[in-house]
């Protein structure tokens, strides 16, 4: 295949691409954009609220990850968290956290 012919086609395509006619926006298009922007603003999801939303989402993700890690640690340590919590709330806290002392 003649490389010169490919070069010619390639250059012609590049030239046609760069000389493409400009597509214009009509007033209805602009009005549509502004309408959507106003809706975002009234819904409270405008630009000035985005940072707060992102902070809350990131903090929530961190809190969930921390809680999950803590749960894994609790299960791995053999702590029976539910039983411990029950004893602390319903009976003598000292007995709950120092098993065997009450028998002395």
């Amino acid at each position, binding site marked *: 295949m003649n490389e010169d012919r490919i070069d010619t086609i390639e250059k012609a395509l590049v030239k046609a691409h760069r000389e493409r006619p400009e597509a214009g926006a009509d007033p209805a298009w602009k009005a549509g954009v502004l309408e959507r*922007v106003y809706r975002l603003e009234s819904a409270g999801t405008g630009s000035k609220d985005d940072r707060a939303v992102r902070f809350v989402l990131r903090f929530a993700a961190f809190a969930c990850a921390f809680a999950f890690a803590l749960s894994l640690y609790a299960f791995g340590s053999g702590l029976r968290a539910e039983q411990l919590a029950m004893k602390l709330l319903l009976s003598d806290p000292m007995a709950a956290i120092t098993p065997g002392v009450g028998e002395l």
Partner: protein
Amino acid sequence: MGELKDLADSEVISRVIEGRTDDFGVLLDRYHAYVFKVVSGHVPYDAVPDLAHDVFVEAYRSLTDFDGRMPFKNWLAGIAVHHCYDYWRIHYRNREIPMSAFTEDHRESLDAVVASEADSAFSRQEAQKEAREILQAALVGLSPEDRMVLVLVHFEGHSVKEAAGLLGWSSVNVKVRAHRSRAKLRKRIADMLKGSESR
């Protein structure tokens, strides 16, 4: 509004962030043609208005992220390029297009360009439309990443560094893709010419 037109982009942006949403119209007036131009270089013409619409809405939502380190126009171009890339990630389907999908007009256009050995053969308006269609056919099968790099670097004339900045990718990645995608394009053109000759 006559006063607003004289304000710098940064001042208009500050006003919008403060809550004067109407002032966003100034940025829309200033840059809608530019965004249309950027977007039309990457996606089919019928998709341009909707995509440009999304670009400006995204720009509005992200205005607080604009730190002024680059001109607003460049920042806007980055958003536009990302939306075009997302468009092709969604629309990336068939890797091949049969040669029979080319019309007789397309084949004649290719023959005319080769015969004239001139890159101005697509200068007529109707031929330009055919050229764009031929180009879109030639780009079918390219991955969205290769397509974006090819158009930015080879067709739009951006440097590797500029294209990498617009896409948010490494210069090495863009450089490798630019070379590879151009080779694919040339092979595609060769296939088209073979198909034209075999008639």
